[in-house]
């Protein structure tokens, strides 16, 4: 049986307390909310924190709130199931609800949180393995080693970002609020991710992702999410496409890609381009490597197909 290493659980009762603890101990601490990403990785020895900061019971970080300006605020602890079932999201921001509905399987959606899904660690065959396994292959650049087995000679890590909700939030112009003891800052998701499996994103180790803000601009827009995975449930995406546009195919199109690069990617300023051009742009942007199941060529092909289907899905869903 794979076992968790020893650690101390810290149970703050307020956000201030949590941020304070993190300010003093962020080097030795991992943040725990749903645990669906962190716990298996800890069992594999990918993280061996002294402290696990359990924020899942913190008040005020739950729920989906309609804002007076037409935007929406979503607490970081809102579960993926709640996103998928939310009437306001399904009606006004359907791309997010649809993406959420495809995450993993039902029990993982019940446990997993939006904040966790956004901050998902990047994934790779050579990384998401036990200590024994990684020692047998001489470790990798992302953990304990210096080689990237996916792209030998590369100085960066090509582990793939595999969250489903981030591309949906990106097409909606979503921003995240990052809270530390010293400050609170709001970062657009387009600036949040880094195209390197090592850095992953701009969140500082003393910060907690506390909420997600969706602006009013795309309220009521059509939205669609297409996902390629091997099985009908459980699996991470091998290619994912989020699309948002004016109802009835009226333009203002944005496309978000996931699971084909170390970060999710937004494609915008697409109006005026043909469907084929958009698909080709998406396929050029996608750089799937042998980090995951399926083949690189097929995943790139699927990005083209899924972009086309997502765009067509926009018209269909607004009928």
């Amino acid at each position, binding site marked *: *049986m794979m076992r968790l290493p020893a650690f101390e659980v810290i149970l703050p009762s307020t956000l201030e307390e949590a941020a304070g603890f993190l300010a003093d101990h962020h080097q030795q601490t991992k943040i725990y909310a749903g645990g669906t990403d962190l716990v298996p990785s800890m069992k594999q020895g990918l993280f061996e924190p002294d402290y696990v900061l359990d924020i899942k019971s913190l008040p005020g970080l739950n729920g989906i709130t309609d804002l007076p300006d037409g935007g929406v605020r979503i607490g970081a602890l809102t579960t993926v199931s709640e996103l998928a079932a939310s009437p306001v999201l399904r009606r006004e921001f359907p791309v997010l609800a649809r993406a959420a509905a495809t995450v993993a399987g039902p029990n993982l959606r019940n446990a997993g949180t939006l904040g966790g899904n956004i901050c998902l660690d990047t994934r790779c065959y050579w990384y998401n393995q036990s200590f*024994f396994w990684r020692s*047998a292959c001489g470790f990798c650049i992302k953990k304990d080693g210096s080689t990237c087995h996916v792209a030998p000679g590369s100085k960066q890590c090509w582990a793939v970002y595999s969250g489903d909700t981030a591309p949906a939030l990106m097409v909606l112009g979503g921003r995240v609020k990052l809270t530390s003891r010293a400050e609170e800052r709001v970062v657009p998701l387009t600036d949040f991710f880094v195209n390197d499996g090592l850095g992953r994103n701009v969140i500082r180790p003393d910060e907690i992702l506390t909420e997600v803000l969706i602006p009013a601009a795309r309220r009521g827009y059509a939205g669609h999410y297409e996902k390629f995975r091997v*099985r*009908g449930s459980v699996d991470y995406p091998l290619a994912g496409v989020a699309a948002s546009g004016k109802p009835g195919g009226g333009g203002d199109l944005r496309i978000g890609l996931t699971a084909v690069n170390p970060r999710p990617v937004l494609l915008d300023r697409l109006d005026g381009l043909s469907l084929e051009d958009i698909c080709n742009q998406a396929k050029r942007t996608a750089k799937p490597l042998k980090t995951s*199941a399926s083949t690189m060529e097929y995943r790139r092909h*699927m990005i083209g197909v899924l972009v086309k289907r997502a765009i067509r899905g926009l018209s269909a869903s607004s009928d």
Partner: protein
Amino acid sequence: MSDDFTTVGKRVPMVDGTQKVTGHGIYTDDIKLPGMLHARIVRSTQPHARILRLDTARAESLPGVFAVVTGKDLTGKYGILPVGHDETALAVDKVRYVGEGIAAIAARTPEIAEEAAHLIDVAYEPLPAYFDPIKAMNQPDVLIHEDKPGNIERDYHHDFGNVEQGFADADLIRDDSFFCPRVTHAAMEPHSTLASFEGGKLTVWSSTQTPYYLHRTLALVLGMPMSSIRVIKPLVGGGFGGKDEPLGHEICTAALAIKSGRPVRLTISREEVFYIHRGRPAQHVWLKTGVTRDGRITAVHCKTIQDGGAYCSYGVVTILYSGALLGAIYDIRNFRYDGYRVLTNLPACGAMRGHGSVNVRFAFESQMDILAREIGIDPADMRLRNALEPNSRTANDLRVTSYGYPECIRKVVERSGWNEKKGKLPYGKGIGIAGSHYVSGAANAIIRSKMPHSNVMLKLDIDGGVTIYTGTAEIGQGSDTIQVQIVAEELGIGLERVRIVSADSDLTPMDLGSYSSRVTFMAGNACLRAAREMKSKINRAAADLLKVAPEQLVNRDSRIFVSSDPQRAVTFDETVVHALGTQGGTLVSQGSYTPPDEAKGGKFKGSGVGPGVAYSYSAQVAEVSVDVETGQVTVERIVAAHDCGRALNPLTVEGQIEGSVSMGLGQALTEEVKYDQGLTMNPGLLEYKTGGIRDTPIIESIIVESVDPEGPFGAKEAGEGSLAAVIPAVANAIYDAVGVRIKELPLTPERILKAIQEKQHR
């Protein structure tokens, strides 16, 4: 035999079902003994290397570590097959695959055992390693085992009838090559073993399908008499062949218990299950078949190479089944078989549901579809035209008794609407048919002897309850339930009066175990014989009470009555009291089963594998949709008919058919153990893609009851024969849908799309 049964043929829930669904069932990992230690296996990081140094001193000195063993402590060689004693519990001198055990540690906690594992100091001298069986055969610079030249574990060359003449008589000959990668069982329960050593007696609890072979192997390797060892099999969370041989971790756990003097438990991780493996081998199949214009097969030549991994395991049997079972479904008078079982530096392959037959069946049934289309015969009809006769002997001297295959084909054709749909579905939708079969119990034991294969004892006491003592291994397939039903039926009593104690070597008589789909047939017959003996004792007492001859009595509904006058009756309970009083107290009876000599096969080398005491048959129709833009396949519906002789319990038969179909669909569409330089790339259930409920189509099970002349109440196996057919049925349906023939598993969207694109470009 009357069909008027009271429990046989009824949809009886499994007798151990309640404890499982309530979570109260006790599996090996649930058992805790006072002072119990936790074990861990240290495994090789090298695919092929000499062990230069293996120093356990630091690990042994870690506080909380009680015992460490290495290959030097357990040098006795073993293996499930007498011809395959090539394994040691831990590697000695050299490692042959990544994940092979090199040391085992028992410590006070699992955490200490893990910490100690990191303190084992090992140095290797790497050797060239082979991961591809053809390379291993062709470039044997270094031998994986010194006594296996060319890295060939075993090859067989069989020739039946006149193959040259058969091909000369053919109007059409096809030659196709197929490939199937490795797949694994993915049983829900990872292997677990608990051992305790007290007063010179060793007790081992283990999640095994074959407690008897484990018992023998423990005695062999540990140098103890079998009488000093007790083997108990608690509930097992699925086997599928992955637990049907003695495994290194079981021996290590026992050795650690002996060395430490404390009970030791070892439950391995899911990742380690992939290193133990014993799954279906990767296999190349080259198949040449000749047919006449009217669809009769005139000759078959099958050549196959299996990647067996680093040890023999069941390999010699697997390569023989691949050839022998070609003979047992269609009437093929002329066939030649060249089979090579090859060693590689990967985890050892072993037995897996449909053992040896599945990959060849994919090839055969795919090629039959090609042939039928090329000569213009309906694929279902072509199968019927090549049917065997019941009660016949095949070209390779297998005895076929009951044979429900034609009825299986007719039933699935009718239920699926085959004739209305075949060739008439729009592009992208398809329908395909295929068949399969399996032995219903191997007629020859793994270790040849005159011993019965199954033994059962019954005890009837003053409480009016009957206890079955049986060595069979219930692994979730329902063998306990079936035996209870058989005894209840024969004694004419309710199921609630029958208890079962199974697989505890101190209490239960020997049974060979749960492999080769043998338990219902063999232990069922043993139960039936024991029950008949018990019935004669009961009826002697009843005859005494009713003042009639015992032959005139009928046992039913816990009553014993005169057949000509049902009102003249005594209750089961009063009869038991009388019987105990007049027949010396507790009533016991015994039954056994030994396969008949005429079922044991021919006299040629390798003829011992393939003979079954009977064979089960399956025909299946698959309906699929193919997304031509992505190559993605949706299996819409499977209609599966299985000939299981008489269905003793239709509920569990249907469960087996559905389980076989869904397991076969995994191999057909998504499953593959991937390796890179000997490393298992997907050693977990997230990346090893067994299908879930979202991937499972509607499965319509049809039970075909051929009523076997020798099976208990006419029953045959239900657990394995239905797996193989679904794979070619889906492949054939894909061809029907989009006109592409995929000859390599799994039938991935990548492969299908590529084939569609190539076809469009031609």
